[in-house]
C-alpha cells in the first residue's frame, strides 16, 4: 500500500482560492492574502494553449491543489482508464501539492452528467469507492483527499452515517479528507441534523483541506428550506461560524474559497480570502506567527 495521508504534507495552512483565468494578471502581480490556488483538473487536460501556459506560470509562484470533478469515484462502472491516465499525466508534470476528488458519481453508461450525484452509504458502496480510490492513488502515486458532498436527499438503503463512512474510507485506503464546511451546512439544513454534531463526528485528523463557498436558498415541497451548493456568491455568516467551530477543533488547515459561478472581481474574492486568513489567525497555533516561531526555534 502507498504511504497514507499525513496532515503535515501538502498545502500551507493558509487561505487559497479557486483559480479563475480572469484573475491571472492580478494574482501574478499581488495575491495577498492568497497563498495557494486550486484548479479543476479537467480544465487543464487540453493539449496546450493559454490554460496550460498560465498554469505553468502559476505553479512557479504558488502551491497548486488539483481538484478533480470528473472521475466518478462513486460510479457503479469501473473507472474510465483514459481519464485515470489523463489525471496521472497532469499530476506527473504539474507535481501539485495536493490532489482531491469527490464522494459522488457523475458518469453512467459512458455519459458524463457534469454534476456530483449522490451515493447510498452502504457496504457495497464502501467497497466500490475504496477500490476506485486505491486505483487512483496507485495511478497518481500519492494519497488523495476525498470531499464530503452537499446532500439534498437521503437513501433509505443507507446504513452508515456520512462522517463514519468517510472515516472508514480513509482508514481502508489511507486517503485524507477534504472537509467542505459549506457542504456540511447545506446538508445539515436540508436533512435537519446538527452541523456541529457532524463536525464533532468527523475524522478531523485526516483533513488536509477545508472548502468554503456560497449556496443558494430554495424550498422543498413542504416549504422547508432547501439549500443548494452553487458556488455563486459570498460565504454566509453561519458558515464562517462553522469554520471557526471546525478550526478550534482541527487546528490550522489550508482553507479554500470556491466561487465558480458569477465569478466576482479579484478584490471581492481576495476579501473572502482575507476573512479566511482572519479565521486562521485567531488560532493559537497558526499563520505567519507560527511559521516565524518554527523558524526561530527550528
Amino acid at each position, binding site marked *: 500500500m502507498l504511504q497514507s495521508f499525513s496532515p503535515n504534507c501538502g498545502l500551507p495552512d493558509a487561505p487559497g482560492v479557486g483559480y479563475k483565468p480572469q484573475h491571472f494578471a492580478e494574482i501574478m502581480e499581488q495575491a495577498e492574502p492568497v497563498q495557494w490556488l486550486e484548479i479543476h483538473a479537467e480544465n487543464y487536460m487540453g493539449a496546450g494553449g493559454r490554460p496550460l501556459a498560465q498554469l505553468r506560470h502559476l505553479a512557479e509562484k504558488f502551491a497548486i491543489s488539483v481538484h478533480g470533478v470528473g472521475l466518478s469515484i462513486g460510479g457503479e462502472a469501473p473507472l474510465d482508464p483514459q481519464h485515470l491516465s489523463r489525471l496521472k499525466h497532469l499530476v506527473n508534470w504539474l507535481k501539485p501539492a495536493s490532489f482531491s476528488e469527490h464522494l459522488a458519481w457523475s458518469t453512467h453508461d459512458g455519459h458524463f*452528467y457534469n454534476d456530483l*450525484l449522490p451515493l*447510498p452509504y452502504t457496504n457495497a458502496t464502501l467497497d466500490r469507492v475504496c477500490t476506485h480510490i486505491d486505483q487512483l492513488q496507485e495511478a497518481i502515486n500519492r494519497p488523495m483527499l476525498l470531499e464530503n458532498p452537499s446532500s439534498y436527499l437521503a437513501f433509505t438503503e443507507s446504513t452508515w452515517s456520512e462522517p463514519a463512512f468517510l472515516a472508514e474510507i480513509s482508514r481502508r485506503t489511507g486517503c485524507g479528507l477534504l472537509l467542505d464546511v459549506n457542504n456540511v451546512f447545506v446538508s445539515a439544513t436540508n436533512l435537519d441534523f446538527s452541523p456541529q454534531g457532524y463536525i464533532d463526528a468527523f475524522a478531523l485528523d485526516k483533513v488536509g483541506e477545508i472548502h468554503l463557498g456560497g449556496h443558494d436558498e430554495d424550498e422543498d415541497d413542504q416549504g422547508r428550506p432547501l439549500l443548494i451548493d452553487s458556488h455563486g456568491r459570498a460565504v454566509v455568516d453561519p458558515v464562517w461560524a462553522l469554520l471557526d467551530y471546525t478550526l478550534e477543533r482541527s487546528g490550522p488547515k489550508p482553507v479554500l474559497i470556491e466561487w465558480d459561478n458569477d465569478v466576482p472581481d479579484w478584490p471581492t474574492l481576495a476579501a473572502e480570502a482575507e476573512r479566511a486568513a482572519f479565521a486562521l489567525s485567531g488560532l493559537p497555533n497558526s499563520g505567519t506567527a507560527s511559521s516565524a516561531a518554527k523558524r526561530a526555534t527550528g
Partner: protein
Amino acid sequence: MTQTDPKTALGSVDQATFTQAMMDATQDVPLGLVDHEGAAAGQRFSVYRNNVAVSLTEAMHSAFPVVAKLLGKENMDGLSGLFLRAHPPSSPLMMFYGVEFPAFLEGMQQLSHLGYLGDVARLELALRHAYHAADAAPIDPMLLAGQSEQALLDSRITLAPALHLIRSPWPMHSIWRFSTEAGAAKPKAGAEAVLITRPEFDPIPQVVNPADAAWIEALMQGDSIGEALDQARTIDSTFDLSSPLTLLLQAGAITGLESKG
C-alpha cells in the same frame, strides 16, 4: 395515491434508475430517495435534474456564443435542452462538449430557414479546438529563404496543431464577425473558406480565397509544396504561393519543413 411508502421501499436505487429519472422529468422520482423524515424526495430530486440541465445548457452557451446570439437566449436554452438529452457529454472534458451540435442544428426541421447555423457552429467548435491545441514552435522563415525553388517545391510542411481550415457554402465568417464585432460589414451571400491560426494563444479566423484554401488543404493532407501548388492551380491557374505562404509564416502556422531526400 397508492404509491409504496418510500420508507419501506427496500429497492436500492441503482445509477441507471437514477440517471433515467434525472434526464426525463416526466418519470417518477425513484423510490428509496427520501427526505429526513422518510417522505418521498419529490422536489429535492429536481435539484439534480436542474443542476445537470442548467450546467450543460450554460456549457452550450459558452461553447457556442455566436449561435446563441443568432438564435436568442430562449431558443438556445430550448435547443440545448434537446441537445443535452440527445447527446450528453461522452467525456468529463467539457472544453470539447458539443461536437455533434452542428449536425444536430442541421437536422432540426424548424431551423431549416437558417441553413448557415450548422457551419457557424462548426466555426465556433474549430476555434475552441484551436484554443486548446498543442503548442508548437514555428520554424524560422529564413529556412525557406535559403532554398532553391525546386528544393522548396519538393519540401513538405508540417502545420501547427492549432491550424484548421473549414469551408462553407454560406458566408460563415462574415456572419460570425457581424455578431462579434461592432461595425463589421453586413454578410453578403456566398461561400467562404476560413483559415484558423493561433499565433500565440488566441485563435484568429480569416477568409482565404478558394485557391489558397485548396493549397493549404493539400498541405494538410501531406502533399509537398509543389504537389499542393498543382492542386491550387486547378482552381486558379494564376495561383501564386507567395501570398498564402507568407500568411502561414506570419501566423506562426508552419512548425516543420522536410526537404526531399
